[in-house]
C-alpha cells in the first residue's frame, strides 16, 4: 500500500528533465519530449485497470517480483562486510595448510552443491552460483571470451581452484545444453537460472580444461597426503567434464562413469570428521543482489554429505547408454518401456535418453533411418510376412512419416518425470487414434484391390490389418497405462476406483483380443511355411519340387525367424495382458463386495450441489471421449456393470463365497503368469514359447513384474481381511458407520494396484481423541 500511495504522488518534473544526466553523456537534443503523449494516454486509461503487456498473464504474475517488498526484492538483501568486500584475488589463509584447507573446502562445497542442484532440484543461485569465485571467473572470462585465471600469487587459488571451477562450469554448460534439447522439463525437472552469466559458450571443447585439471593434479602432488581429498575431487571433476561425450561423440563408453562412481564412493566413505572451514564471505547470497535475477531472495542451501548422489547419476546414465546394445527395435522398445517405469531415473540420464537414440544425422542409434525405424516397429510385431509389407501402397508413405513422429513422442515421453509421463499418454491417445483411422482406410482399400492378410483358418474371415492392429495395440496399451498410472499418482478417490479398475479390465480385454488375432495370424503363416516342406516331401523329384523347395528356402531365410520371434513376443505380451486383466478384475470384484456391504459407493459422497455423478464420470473419461474404438461406456451402462457384480439376497453368503473364490482364482492366474514372465526375462534368450526382449533391462523389468506378483498376493490377503471384518457379528449391522475406505500402496507391491483398504473409523477416532 505504501508503494501504491507513493506511485499516486508520481508526476513529471518538467524543469529537471535534461539535468537528470549530470555527466553530460546525454544532452537535451538527444531527448524526445513525450509529455503530450503521456498525457493523452493517461486520459485513455480506465480507472482500476491494470497496465500490462498483453502477454503478461497469471503465470507471469505469480512469478513477478515487487520492488521494496523484502520477501520479493533481492536488492534488499543485506550482506556482511566480508561478503561485500570479498576479494577473489587475495590468497585467503594465513599458512599454506590453511590455504589448502580453504581451497579444498570451496571445491568440496561446489561438488556437493552440484548434487543439491541436480538430485534435489535446488536452484543454481542458491547452490553453485553462490560461490564468489565462480561468479567472478565467469564474468571476467566472458569479457575476453577466454578463461581467465586468478592472480593471488598462490597456485592453489590461481591454478587449482580455477581449474576446478572451470571443470564444474563446463559440466553445468552441458546440463544447460541438455535442458535446451527439451528432453526434460525446465523448472519442473531442472532449473537453469544462470542469472545472465555466460557458461563458457566460448569454450567449444574440453581439452583446455582437461589440461588445466592435469596441471593442478601435478601441482598437488607436492602436497602429499594432505591434498588427498582435493585430488579426489579434481579427479571426480575430470569425469564430469567427459560426460558430454555421450552426445558430442555419441559414445556409449562408460569408463569415466565407473571412475566417477569410484571417486564418489571414496569421498562418501571418508571420515565424517573431515569438515573444511571456508573463508568468510566466499559463498553468499550476494549474486542474487548483484546480477540479473527473476527469483525472489532465497537462502543458500546447506549441502549434506551427498557424494552418493554422483553414484545415482552415473548408474542411471550407464543404464541409458546400454541402450546402444539393442539388437532389434523390439529390444529398443522394451528398454524404453521399462527403464523409467518403476523408478524415476536421474534427470541427467532422462535428458540424455532421447538425444542419444534419435541423432543429428537423422538416424536412430546411428543404425536405422527414420523410415526404417517406423516400419520396423510393426514388422517386429504384426507386419512380418504380410501382403501389404511386400507391396506398400504409395498412400502409406506419408503415414509412415506420421508414425515416426508419434513414435518419437512415445520414446520421448518414456523419459519424462512421473507426472508428465501420464500427461504424455493423454496427448498420445489422440495421435494414435488419428493414425489408426488413416491407416485403416489405406489397408481396407489395399485389401479390396489386392489380398487380405487373414489367418489361414476355416472360420476366420476378418482380416488382420497389420498396421492398424499394431497402432491399435499401441493405443490401447497407452490407454491402460494412462488409467493405471493415475493410481500411482494418487489421482483417484476410492469411490472412483471401481470405474478405473473396470476400465483397465475392459481395455486389457480389448488388447488381449487384438493380440490373439495377430498371434493367430502369425501362427498360420508359420504353419503355412512348415506345410510347404511337407508338401515338398510328398512330391516326386522334378521341376515343381525344385521350385517349391526354392520357395521354401526363401521363406525360411527371410520370414521364418521374424515370425517365430514375433509369435513368442506376442505370447509374452498376452501374458502381461492377462496379469493386468486378472488383477483389475480382482479389484473390481473386491469393490463389488464392499459395495454389497454398503461400505463404499461408486459415487461421490458430495451433495453435488453444482454437479452430478454423471458429469463427474464423464469428466473422468474426458481423455477417452473422442476415441472411436474402444469407445467410452455410457454412464448408465457402467452402473449396470457394477450391479452385475454385486451380491444380494437370497443366498448372499453363497454368492459372497463364489466371488471370493473368483478373486482367489484371478490373483492366482496373475501370479502364475508373472512366474512365467519372470522366468522368461531371466533366461535372456529367445525361449521355446516366450520372448521378452528385455535383455538390457532385466532388473527393471523383473522388478516391475515382481511388484505385480506382490500385489496379487496382497489383493488376495486383503480380500480375506475385509471379509473377516465385515462378517464380524458386531460390525455386520451397520458397517458404513464403522468403516471408511482408502487406497493404500503396499511396500514392494505395484503402485498401479493399490489395495482397497477398510479402515476402522472407531479406532481412528479413539486415536485422535488421545
Amino acid at each position, binding site marked *: 500500500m505504501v508503494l501504491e500511495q507513493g506511485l499516486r504522488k508520481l508526476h513529471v518534473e518538467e524543469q529537471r528533465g535534461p539535468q537528470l544526466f549530470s555527466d553530460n553523456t546525454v544532452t537535451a537534443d538527444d531527448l524526445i519530449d513525450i509529455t503530450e503523449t503521456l498525457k493523452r494516454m493517461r486520459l485513455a486509461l480506465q480507472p482500476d485497470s491494470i497496465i500490462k503487456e498483453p502477454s503478461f498473464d497469471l503465470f507471469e504474475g505469480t512469478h513477478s517480483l515487487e520492488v521494496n*517488498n523484502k520477501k520479493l526484492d533481492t536488492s534488499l538483501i543485506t550482506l556482511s562486510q566480508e561478503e561485500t568486500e570479498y576479494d577473489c584475488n587475495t590468497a585467503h589463509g594465513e599458512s599454506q595448510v590453511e590455504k589448502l584447507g580453504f581451497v579444498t573446502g570451496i571445491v568440496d562445497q561446489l561438488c556437493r552443491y552440484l548434487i543439491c542442484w541436480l538430485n534435489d532440484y535446488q536452484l543454481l543461485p542458491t547452490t553453485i552460483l553462490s560461490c564468489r569465485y565462480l561468479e567472478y571467473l565467469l564474468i571476467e572470462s566472458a569479457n575476453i571470451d577466454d578463461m581467465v585465471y586468478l592472480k593471488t600469487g598462490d597456485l592453489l587459488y590461481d591454478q587449482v581452484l580455477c581449474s576446478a571451477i572451470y571443470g564444474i562450469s563446463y559440466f553445468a554448460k552441458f546440463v544447460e545444453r541438455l535442458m535446451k534439447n527439451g528432453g526434460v522439463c525446465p*523448472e519442473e525437472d531442472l532449473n537453469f537460472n544462470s542469472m545472465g552469466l555466460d557458461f563458457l559458450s566460448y569454450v567449444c571443447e574440453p581439452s583446455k580444461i582437461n589440461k588445466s585439471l592435469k596441471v593442478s593434479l601435478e601441482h598437488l602432488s607436492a602436497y602429499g597426503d594432505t591434498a588427498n581429498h582435493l585430488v579426489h575431487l579434481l579427479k571426480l571433476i575430470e569425469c564430469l567434464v567427459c560426460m558430454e561425450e555421450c552426445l558430442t561423440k555419441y559414445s556409449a563408453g562408460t569408463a569415466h562413469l565407473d571412475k566417477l562412481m569410484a571417486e564418489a564412493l571414496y569421498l562418501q566413505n571418508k571420515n565424517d570428521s573431515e569438515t573444511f572451514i571456508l573463508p568468510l564471505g566466499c559463498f553468499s547470497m550476494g549474486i542474487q543482489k548483484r546480477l540479473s535475477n527473476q527469483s525472489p531472495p532465497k537462502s543458500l542451501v546447506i549441502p549434506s554429505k551427498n557424494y552418493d548422489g554422483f553414484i545415482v547419476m552415473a548408474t542411471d546414465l550407464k543404464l541409458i547408454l546400454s541402450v546402444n546394445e539393442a539388437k532389434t527395435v523390439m529390444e529398443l522398445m522394451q528398454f524404453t518401456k521399462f527403464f523409467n517405469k518403476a523408478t524415476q531415473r536421474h534427470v541427467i540420464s532422462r535428458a540424455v535418453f532421447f538425444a542419444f537414440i534419435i541423432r543429428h544425422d537423422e538416424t536412430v542409434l546411428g543404425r536405422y533411418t527414420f523410415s526404417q525405424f517406423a516400419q520396423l516397429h510393426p514388422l517386429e510385431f504384426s507386419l512380418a510376412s504380410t501382403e501389404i509389407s511386400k507391396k506398400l501402397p504409395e498412400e502409406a508413405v506419408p503415414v509412415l512419416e506420421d508414425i515416426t513422429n508419434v513414435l518419437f513422442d512415445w520414446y520421448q515421453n518414456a523419459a519424462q518425470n512421473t507426472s508428465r509421463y501420464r500427461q504424455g499418454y493423454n496427448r498420445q491417445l*489422440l495421435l494414435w487414434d488419428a493414425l489408426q483411422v488413416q491407416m485403416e482406410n489405406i489397408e481396407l482399400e489395399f485389401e479390396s484391390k489386392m489380398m487380405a492378410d487373414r489367418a489361414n483358418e476355416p472360420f476366420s474371415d476378418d482380416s488382420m490389418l497389420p498396421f492398424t492392429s499394431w497402432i491399435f495395440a499401441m493405443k490401447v496399451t497407452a490407454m491402460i497405462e494412462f488409467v493405471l498410472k493415475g493410481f500411482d499418482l494418487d489421482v483417484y478417490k476410492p469411490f472412483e476406483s471401481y470405474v478405473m479398475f473396470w476400465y483397465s479390465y475392459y481395455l486389457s480385454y480389448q488388447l488381449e483380443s487384438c493380440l490373439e488375432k495377430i498371434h493367430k495370424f502369425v501362427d498360420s503363416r508359420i504353419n503355412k511355411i512348415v506345410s510347404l516342406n511337407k508338401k515338398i516331401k510328398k512330391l516326386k523329384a522334378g521341376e515343381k519340387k525344385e521350385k517349391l523347395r526354392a520357395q521354401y528356402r526363401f521363406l525360411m531365410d527371410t520370414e521364418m525367424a521374424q515370425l517365430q520371434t514375433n509369435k513368442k513376443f506376442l505370447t509374452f505380451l498376452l501374458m502381461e495382458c492377462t496379469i493386468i486383466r486378472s488383477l483389475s478384475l480382482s479389484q473390481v470384484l473386491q469393490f463389488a463386495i464392499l459395495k454389497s456391504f454398503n461400505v463404499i459407493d461408486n459415487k461421490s459422497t458430495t451433495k453435488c450441489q*453444482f454437479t452430478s455423478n454423471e458429469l463427474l464420470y464423464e*469428466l473422468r473419461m474426458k481423455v477417452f471421449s*473422442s476415441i472411436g474404438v474402444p469407445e467410452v461406456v455410457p454412464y448408465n451402462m457402467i452402473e449396470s456393470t457394477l450391479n452385475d457384480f454385486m451380491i444380494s439376497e437370497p443366498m448372499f453368503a453363497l454368492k459372497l463365497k463364489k466371488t471370493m473364490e473368483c478373486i482367489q482364482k484371478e490373483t492366482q492366474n496373475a501370479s502364475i503368469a508373472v512366474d512365467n514372465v519372470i522366468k522368461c526375462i531371466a533366461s535372456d534368450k529367445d525361449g521355446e514359447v516366450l520372448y521378452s526382449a528385455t535383455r538390457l533391462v532385466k532388473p527393471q523389468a523383473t522388478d516391475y513384474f515382481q511388484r505385480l506378483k506382490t500385489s496379487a498376493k496382497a489383493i488376495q490377503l486383503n480380500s480375506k481381511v475385509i471379509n473377516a471384518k465385515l462378517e464380524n457379528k458386531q460390525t455386520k449391522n451397520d458397517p458404513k458407520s464403522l468403516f471408511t475406505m482408502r487406497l493404500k500402496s503396499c511396500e514392494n507391491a505395484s503402485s498401479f494396484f493399490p489395495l482397497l483398504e477398510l479402515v476402522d473409523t472407531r479406532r481412528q477416532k479413539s486415536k485422535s481423541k488421545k
Partner: protein
Amino acid sequence: MISYRPLDLGNLLHFEHLKRLIDADLSEPYSIYVYRFFLNRWPELAYLAFDDDSEKSDEPIGCVICKQESHRNRRMRGYIGMLAVESKYRGRGIAKTLVKKAIKKMQKEGCDEIMLETEVSNNVALNLYEGMGFLRMKRMFRYYLNEGDAFKLILPLTAKSCVRTTFLEENVD
C-alpha cells in the same frame, strides 16, 4: 455472526488485510501484481468474510479470490486463485461458504467448469474441494518450485467440461 460480502475494490484497508491473510500461509508471498490481476479485473468474483461480533468487524477474516476466462475460446473456465481463513476462525465452515458463493456466481456467469491447483500435501484444501465434487485431473511434478507436487482439480458444471477442447466448437464471440 459471520457475514459475507463481495469485495469493495475501493477499500484499501480491506485490500491490505486480505493480502496479509493470504500471505500468512505462503512460503513466498505473491507480488502486489497478482492481487491486482485478480481483483481489478474480477472484483465481483472475490468474497470476504467478516466477524460482525468482533471489535474489528471491518477486517476480513476470510476471503476467496477467483477469475473467469474463456479456455482456448471453447469453454468458460472459472478459476479459484486464492482462499484463506484466519487461523482462529477455521473449522467453522467459513471457507466452504465462501467457495460456494464464488462458484454460484461463476455458474451464473456461464462457467462450464471451475478449476484450481492445490498442493498434494494440503489435505484440508483437498478435503474441502473434493467434498464439493472436485476431481483430481492431473498431478504436476514439483509444481511449487522447491516444494511438492500439486493436483489440478476440476468441478464440471456443464457437459462442455467433459469434452476435449479440440472437439468443442469455437465460440464465435
